[in-house]
């Protein structure tokens, strides 16, 4: 381990200065080339717009490029004296015991089987470290679906029984999911946060190695000035072609980008919402989120709470770090292009909300940058679209101009100046900025034999990078249109109407693909026809974008294919270290999912409805009743409402009730007991089996 830095402030400043200087210089050079092309006949309004758009977009690419380049440098040299995991203090000998830490898993209508299989895998991995007794597990449910709710309760109780986890593995379902995920965590902090010095926040599909969890606590213990430590979650476990390509890219390029981010952000890093450890007391003191004034999308609850919480901690003087070199932090990703877009839709609104926060008073400069980067993740798409349209329009006007060879009294012709070299340079610089990081990441494999083998060898890894690049070129225009649509819809306060995200592997059928991508295909065809007709020279440059749009339906369908995903794996393509040699925690997860033999008999059969089972099965009924929070008896109006629902259930059956109505019925203890008695007194078909 390296010694603590003598003057970190100076070093930190130098790193940041170098980063921003590089971004600025590269942007200025590219802008200079563009201006030299445009300024010959004076700048038109369209050219000014193009320049402005290009400046924004190019600086955005530059930041990404120099981040990757710095990450490449760090990994290549293996030197990063200020990485949080490597800093030690003379007084910080490893403690014999660790402070109590809560592992939190906030869930919302998730696949319970997968959620608890994941938690069990983490539990077992922690047990392997011998540090299990230092950690408590909390399943913080915001689930609204009554069937999923009851299933969660049974799975929780099964896990407690199987792992002897009474008093260590907890579960609660919030009566109201106020302020969504941030409210869920806040509820934990207010009720039980006082028991713990740290909390590790997971996502429903997070998996973390036990030794990583223990190391996170140790790092926090060594650095009392740190309030939040984020680990980089590596995407894993999906088998569709789309997900495997993304997993490969996330794994190979991701480690370089996170190393680069840490290089210049250091103790002013960001929070990504999960797979992170937080010091509870500063979180309680400084991270209570206010409602933003005004209506949605920019007012109301803060949706992307993680960025804001990190900024609030920084504002209060606490450090926030990215432990980029801590391995053993995983997450699952959407299995198809459409699911990926659906996730984007959810994130888009929260990130756009940061527009207001970026300029709020009191936040640190880097926190403002994080907010702006969040905004740009989505705003970049409409800006690229505008840039493409403006380029096409400008190219059209250029073709309409007749060249003038003789000016005034001159008898010597003035030949039009060609700027092909400058334009090609601009294009090449842009493409280099976009694609060079991929080559750099590939180059890093040459350094480590173990890693090279884990990615399937140099040849397979290179081929995978080439194919991934082709795939990203094809899908980029589709995502651009998706994100543009989301941004516009949010700005116009319109619901886009996406159903909830499906996390499990599944394939995209023709109907779904056609309905989702039909308009994008049409846009591609029309834009292609127009550009070919009116600006043929532009058409050929435009082909990569057009191709992505025109092929959106087949690309979306084929990339969702599980068979192609498996086939590519057999061919050694898009391999990741987690696939080649899965760590124990991922093997545990797989075992839990494959050999699921619940302790509770009631879980061994899957009834048609857990809701009905909660009414009929004496055990499920009693367990559910015991987990309901104490509350005031319902008022007169509420009682009448519940009475009406009971009659509806008696007469028309459970299928006539909405999920919310079913939830209302089983959320009231008195009604739950009454319905239990009612079912057993009338003996409907199947009552005994639930």
């Amino acid at each position: 381990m390296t010694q603590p830095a003598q003057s970190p402030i100076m070093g930190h400043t130098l790193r940041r200065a170098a980063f921003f200087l590089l971004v600025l210089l590269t942007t200025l050079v590219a802008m200079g080339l563009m201006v030299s092309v445009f300024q010959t006949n004076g700048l038109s309004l369209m050219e000014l717009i193009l320049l402005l758009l290009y400046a924004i977009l190019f600086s955005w690419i530059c930041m990404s490029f120099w981040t990757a380049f710095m990450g490449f440098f760090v990994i290549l040299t293996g030197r990063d004296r200020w990485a949080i995991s490597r800093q030690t203090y003379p007084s910080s000998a490893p403690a014999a015991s660790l402070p109590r830490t809560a592992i939190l898993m906030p869930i919302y209508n998730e696949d319970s089987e997968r959620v608890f299989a994941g938690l069990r895998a983490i539990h077992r991995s922690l047990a392997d470290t011998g540090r299990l007794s230092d950690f408590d597990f909390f399943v913080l449910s915001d689930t609204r679906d009554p069937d999923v709710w009851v299933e969660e309760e049974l799975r929780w109780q099964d896990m407690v029984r199987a792992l002897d986890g009474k008093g260590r593995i907890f579960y609660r379902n919030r009566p109201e999911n106020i302020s969504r995920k941030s409210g869920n965590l806040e509820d934990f902090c207010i009720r039980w946060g006082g028991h713990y010095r740290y909390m590790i926040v997971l996502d429903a599909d997070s998996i973390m190695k036990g030794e990583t969890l223990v190391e996170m606590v140790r790092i926090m213990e060594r650095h009392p000035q740190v309030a939040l430590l984020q680990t980089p979650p590596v995407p894993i476990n999906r088998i569709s072609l789309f997900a495997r390509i993304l997993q490969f890219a996330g794994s190979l390029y991701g480690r370089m980008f996170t190393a680069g981010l840490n290089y210049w952000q250091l103790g002013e890093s960001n929070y990504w919402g999960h797979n992170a450890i937080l010091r509870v007391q500063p979180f309680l003191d400084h991270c209570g989120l206010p409602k933003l004034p005004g209506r949605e999308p920019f007012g109301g609850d803060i949706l992307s709470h993680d960025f804001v919480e990190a900024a609030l901690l920084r504002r209060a003087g606490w450090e926030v770090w990215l432990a980029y070199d801590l391995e053993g932090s995983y997450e699952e990703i959407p299995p198809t292009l459409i699911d990926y877009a659906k996730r984007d839709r959810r994130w888009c609104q929260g990130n756009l909300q940061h527009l207001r926060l970026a300029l709020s008073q009191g936040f640190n400069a880097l926190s403002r940058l994080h907010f702006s980067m969040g905004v740009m993740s989505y705003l970049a798409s409409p800006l690229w679209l505008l840039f493409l349209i403006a380029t096409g329009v400008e190219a059209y006007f250029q073709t309409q101009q007749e060249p003038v060879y003789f000016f005034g009294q001159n008898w010597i012709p003035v030949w039009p100046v060609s700027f092909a070299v400058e334009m090609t340079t601009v294009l090449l610089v842009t493409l280099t900025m976009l694609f060079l990081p991929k080559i750099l990441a590939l180059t890093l494999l040459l350094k480590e034999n173990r890693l090279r083998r884990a990615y399937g060898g140099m040849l397979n890894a290179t081929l995978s990078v080439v194919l991934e690049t082709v795939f990203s070129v094809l899908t980029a225009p589709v995502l651009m249109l998706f994100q543009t649509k989301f941004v516009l819809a949010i700005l116009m306060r319109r619901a886009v109407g996406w159903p909830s995200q499906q996390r499990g592997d599944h394939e995209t059928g023709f109907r779904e693909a056609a309905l989702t991508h039909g308009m994008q295909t049409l846009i591609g065809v029309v834009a292609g026809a127009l550009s070919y007709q009116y600006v043929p020279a532009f058409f050929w440059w435009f082909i990569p974008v057009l191709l992505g749009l025109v092929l959106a339906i087949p690309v979306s369908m084929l990339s969702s294919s599980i068979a192609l995903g498996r086939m590519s794996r057999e061919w050694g393509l898009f391999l990741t270290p987690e696939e080649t040699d899965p760590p124990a925690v991922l093997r545990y997860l797989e075992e839990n999912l494959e050999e699921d033999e619940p302790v509770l008999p009631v879980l061994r059969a899957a009834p048609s409805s857990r809701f009905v089972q909660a009414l009929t099965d004496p055990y499920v009924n009693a367990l559910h009743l015991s987990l309901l929070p104490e509350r005031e008896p319902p008022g007169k109006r509420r009682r009448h409402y519940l009475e009406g629902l009971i009659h509806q259930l008696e007469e028309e059956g459970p299928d006539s009730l909405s999920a919310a109505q079913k939830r209302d019925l089983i959320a009231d203890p008195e009604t739950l007991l009454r319905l239990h008695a009612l079912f057993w007194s009338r003996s409907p078909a199947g009552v005994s089996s639930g």
Partner: protein
Amino acid sequence: MDRGKVSVAAPYLPAPVAAPSSELLLDRLGAYWLALGVSDPDQVAALSEQALRRLPDLPETPGIDPVARVIVAAGDLLDDWLARALELPKPSPTLAAARAALLSGAAPDWPAALFAPPGEASILRDALRTAIAEPAPIPSPGAMPAQRIDLFSLLGPLLRLWRPETRA
């Protein structure tokens, strides 16, 4: 109204029996005890009789028909026994958890213990206490005050000039 078009589909649950026979009551109770894990016919008969004896003492609950009342009485009987065995007050929020622990299979021979002399149920009591679910630790309340975020506003500086009290 065209009455011919009115749906006459059978209700999901059969209509309640206004004056049920004792056979019907015992039949329903027998089925319920069996679902709770009591399979010995003698025990079923004895428990059913005790449940029926409780009926007059049960408070009237609107919407509960006579057959449903005997099911409530059976549950009440079980809760009484659990409260005695675990030395819990009644009503108590832990009783439902105790019932769940009992029915989860943590104490397979509980029907026998139900009829055993009071002192002989200690093993069962310990098993039940171990099996009672603990969904959350004891509260350790803390406060999480909402932080102030002063959003950017073009009018902000002007308003501060206009209203001196907001300058701080």
